[in-house]
């Protein structure tokens, strides 16, 4: 188990070094996207439209912040991870976009694990429900797209500094903490009840 300080944009070779159980502190640009954002990205890509952010080497944070407007500028109040499994149908798309890291909670499924292996990505578990602490690592909101989707679903782009600790729970080598624990759980349940 190792601890890494990493800066966006992230290189594929650096992602491939990471293994389940490693800790990452992240600096640089992070983009949020969740249900509606992924759906809209999919629709734009299928129409060959240009995305309003640079996914290559980037980080997608499954999150919807609480932001407040101060002097005409958006300021981060709090932000934390949302349940990632909802974005599982877009695993292949996100992989092919060149996104290197996905931050969320609760993990993703086999389609994502396959994409992480194929494209060189990792899944990082953020401490869930810790929005005040995580929000304090956001230095500046750089941009917001698709605000008409609502505050949670809009695409927020911001700079973070030493954002973490983020735990690598799914890696590019088919390792998944969630999958291991689920299998262990079922084997226990089946040993208790026939």
């Amino acid at each position, binding site marked *: 188990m190792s601890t890494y300080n990493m800066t966006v944009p992230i290189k594929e070779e650096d992602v491939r070094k990471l293994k389940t159980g490693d800790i990452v502190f992240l600096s640089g640009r992070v983009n949020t996207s969740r249900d509606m954002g992924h759906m809209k990205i999919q629709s734009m890509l299928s129409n060959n439209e240009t995305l309003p952010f640079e996914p290559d080497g980037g980080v997608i944070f499954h999150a919807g*912040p*609480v932001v407040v407007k101060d002097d005409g500028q958006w300021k981060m109040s709090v932000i934390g991870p949302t349940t990632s499994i909802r974005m599982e149908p877009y695993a292949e798309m996100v992989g092919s976009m060149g996104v290197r890291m996905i931050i969320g909670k*609760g993990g993703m499924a086999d389609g994502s694990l396959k994409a992480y292996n194929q494209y060189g990505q990792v899944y990082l578990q953020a401490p869930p429900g810790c*929005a005040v602490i995580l929000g304090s690592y956001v230095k500046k909101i750089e941009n917001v797209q698709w605000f008409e989707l609502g*505050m949670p679903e809009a695409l927020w782009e911001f700079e973070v500094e030493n954002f973490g600790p983020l735990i690598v729970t799914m890696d590019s080598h088919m390792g998944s903490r969630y999958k291991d624990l689920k299998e262990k759980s079922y084997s226990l*349940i089946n040993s208790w009840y026939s």
Partner: protein
Amino acid sequence: MNKVANRVSVGKGIIASLIRGSCTSISPDVFELLKKARDRESFAESASIMDCMIDNVKAAGEAWKPVCQSPGYPVVYVRFGENADLSNIPGDFREELVSATKEGLLRPSIVHPLTRKNPGDNSGVNVPNFEFQFEPGRRDLEIIVSFKGCGAELGNVFKTMTTAELKKDYSGLKKLVLSAVAEAGGKPCPPTGIGVGIGGQMDQAARLSREAISTRNWSDINPDPMLADLEAELLEKINALGLGAAGIGGDTYCLALKIGMASTHTAICPVAINFHCWVARRSGIRILEDGRTEIILGKEV
């Protein structure tokens, strides 16, 4: 005393405080259980996650900020008798939810279920979810506000079991609960609370499961000894699965499991399993006939 003097009601100021107090803190019973679980935790990652949770609760209180970015879904439980005046409750709650949203204490998170359009102020059809519970002879008025995280809702399970599926030792029910936990894993923001509603019809079991984990003190003991034993057994077995905080491996996945029960029809046994995240934002107040108030859940408002 004349009849009018005996009437009980809740003022808008109390409603405003209940909402704001709930979303900026977690109820003390849950906070105590979280701290105890942290002290017992033998897995370093799970312990560090719980450290972060404990720090986060303190930071939210100091900064008067939402504990979690997601306010979840607002539910208001109203327990009343013949002497209660409830006429202002729906309107005042709706107004105060919108006001707290404008203050940045609640993220606007309520959307149309089909179009997904977000009005931007947490207003919406049938929001908040009110449960008016009439209890004949009751002289006081109890109001409990609960903001229940919706990532947790993704783990919820309902099944209409049969007598054969339930089995004589209820092992069918126990397996259903444990399988729901295995499937939910880290999705509901563990360490969780879990409500189990048993009996009635589909909607009753679902309501009981939510009410049990949303309104009971997570440290209480079920007055029904049989249900108390079942709660303890399920809690122990759930934690023995080893899923831990955030569902990444550890000793404590579940802080409390609470069962609500209703008698059912001889043909069925409806069972609802309802996950609650660790961020137990809820406040409750009892208003007495003489106007005095008592805190029944959450902190002083």
